[in-house]
């Protein structure tokens, strides 16, 4: 696992892993709800999104409280804020131009350098801040925060590599995660996007496999272009900016680590 800003004791790391694992479980359940919605439950497909929009903020609050409180030193917090500001500024630049999304490459690179928990926090907080600035707060926000968080989280868990291999690894992860992000979001908001009365709509009475088949077709028909655009943007930006940005982020991580113990020692006396 790559290093975190500052030093973290093992017991803390265990707590963080526990919290992250539970977030993955809850996140997977809430994104996969169209697979287990039963026709007899009396819930309409559109309402399921609201049920999870109620649960997800609690999960997010739990994980963010755990990730940031006591674990992150001030330097990591400031870095989190500044990088989130960077993503926030980049996001409106990219809105509306078919999938040309500029936030993910930063989340991926930061997750790679500062580790999975920083990556998760950065993804979630970037999406939250940009929703506040562009007034895009709605039931989709917790879903976006969780999936962008996952993009950063798994970027931090990628295997070791260096030089060209690392760049290739990150760029292909960028493409893969762009598709995964799009698929997960579309899947959770499927009945919202298209309604219940078309041949590509979610049908609670059908089997999960039939629904998956329908979803793949729906996705091909509607958002393939967006996902592809996002994937290409990610890969291009990582290939273009990856080396200098990684160097920049790593240098600051080293600086923060060098300065950390010295400051702690001088103030604890």
């Amino acid at each position, binding site marked *: 696992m790559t290093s975190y800003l500052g030093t973290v004791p093992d017991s803390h790391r265990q707590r963080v892993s526990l919290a992250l694992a539970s977030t993955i479980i809850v996140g997977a359940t809430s994104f996969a709800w169209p697979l287990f919605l039963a026709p007899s439950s009396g819930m309409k497909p559109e309402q399921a999104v609201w049920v999870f929009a109620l*649960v997800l903020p609690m999960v997010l609050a*739990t994980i963010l409280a755990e990730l940031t409180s006591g674990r992150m030193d001030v330097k990591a*917090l400031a870095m*989190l804020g500044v990088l989130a500001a960077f993503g926030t500024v980049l996001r409106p630049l990219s809105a509306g131009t078919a999938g040309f999304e500029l936030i993910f490459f930063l989340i991926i690179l930061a997750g790679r350098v500062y580790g999975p928990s920083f990556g998760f926090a950065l993804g979630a907080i970037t999406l939250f801040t940009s929703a506040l600035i562009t007034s895009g707060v709605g039931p989709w926000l917790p879903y976006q925060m969780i999936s962008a968080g996952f993009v950063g989280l798994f970027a931090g868990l990628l295997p070791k590599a260096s030089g060209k291999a690392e760049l290739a690894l990150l760029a292909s992860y960028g493409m893969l995660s762009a598709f995964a992000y799009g698929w997960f979001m579309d899947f959770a908001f499927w009945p919202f996007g298209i309604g219940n009365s078309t041949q590509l709509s979610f049908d609670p009475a059908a089997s999960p496999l039939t629904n998956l088949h329908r979803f793949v077709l729906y996705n091909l028909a509607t958002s393939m272009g967006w996902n592809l655009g996002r994937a290409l943007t990610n890969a291009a930006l990582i290939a273009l900016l990856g080396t200098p940005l990684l160097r920049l982020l790593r240098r600051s991580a080293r600086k923060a680590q060098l300065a950390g113990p010295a400051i702690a020692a001088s103030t604890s006396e």
Partner: protein
Amino acid sequence: MVLERTQTLKSLHPLAWWAWAIGIGIAVNGTTNPLLLALIALALVWVVLLRRSSAPWARSVRAYLILGGFVIAMRVFFQIVIGAKTGDTILFALPEIPLPDWAAGIRLGGPITAEALAYTINDALRLAVLLLCLGAANALANPRQALRSMPAALYEASAAVVVALSVAPQLIESGQRVLKARRTRGTNTKGLRSLASVILPVMADSIERSMSLAAGMEARGFARTRGLPVRGSLTLMISSSMLATLGAFVLLSTDFRLLAVGCLVIGLVGAGFGLRLAGKRLAVTRYRQQPWRVRDTVVSGFGLLAAVVVLTIGGLNPNDLSASLLQWLDPQALFPSTDPLTWPQLSVPMLLVVGLVAAPLAVTGKDRIDVTESVRNDTMVRSLRPKAEILVTS
């Protein structure tokens, strides 16, 4: 002398606006009557236009109106191209193209019926008005004020959000500086490659900034007042959110509604309690906390009442009601039939709901901004503040 604008604490609590909007959202979710939906939308826009401030986020309602229109257009398009065929009133017919087997036997085009189209438009209109509710809340509630109401356990996370919100304008400025420098040198400023060459120096700049910010925060004692995490808070929070997820799962996949709602409620309450517990490790006070006044309760009440009215009427069984009551309440008018086609009707309770949507106009005033003489003489601090807050310099 410098005059500054400051947001007064007289404005409505942001969470009150959200509660009002969510209540209306629940009400909207409980009907597909296009007349009622259109009236609610009008009332929402009316409230927003009269009560929004001059802040940047207050302009968002136009975007949400456009988004709503887009949702309706997209739904209608898909209904026409790949819609399931219901009803007999054929408006027009498109040539029918059957797709190959791997495409699940979908047929493109075919006859378009008035019933299917009416159903789609009603349903899409409901979603569009729902989006408008969220747009209204986004436009009316001040996000910075709402951040103050975050639970204490999220103090550090909110600090990161506040840092992001205040650094963002500086980054834009920094980016413009780099662009200007490039332009004066005669370098190309368009395309992905030049975007990259702007991103790098701005990024280096912002990382430097974060280092000095951290030093500043540390020097002011930030994070020195926090203790170790409270024992058991994480276990409580994780198990509660797991329970809530289980509740949602049971609610969606089985018939045990009572058990499901029980799990959900216990889970949510438990998680809230866990958050409070986790916040105990902080020894910090809050600066200028927004008070919750009677007016805030009243406005939230309007929204919740609208939800209660629609849900109660929607839940009534028409067979249990006497003829006069049935005519007055008319539960079926909430979901006008589209097959056979009927003209939607308005009932008295629906007008009450529309009245509740517009009711905040009666109890709130125009959001006033106080103009005070600035006590700060340091131009540096002032130059970093958002432009909207600085009024006159003379």
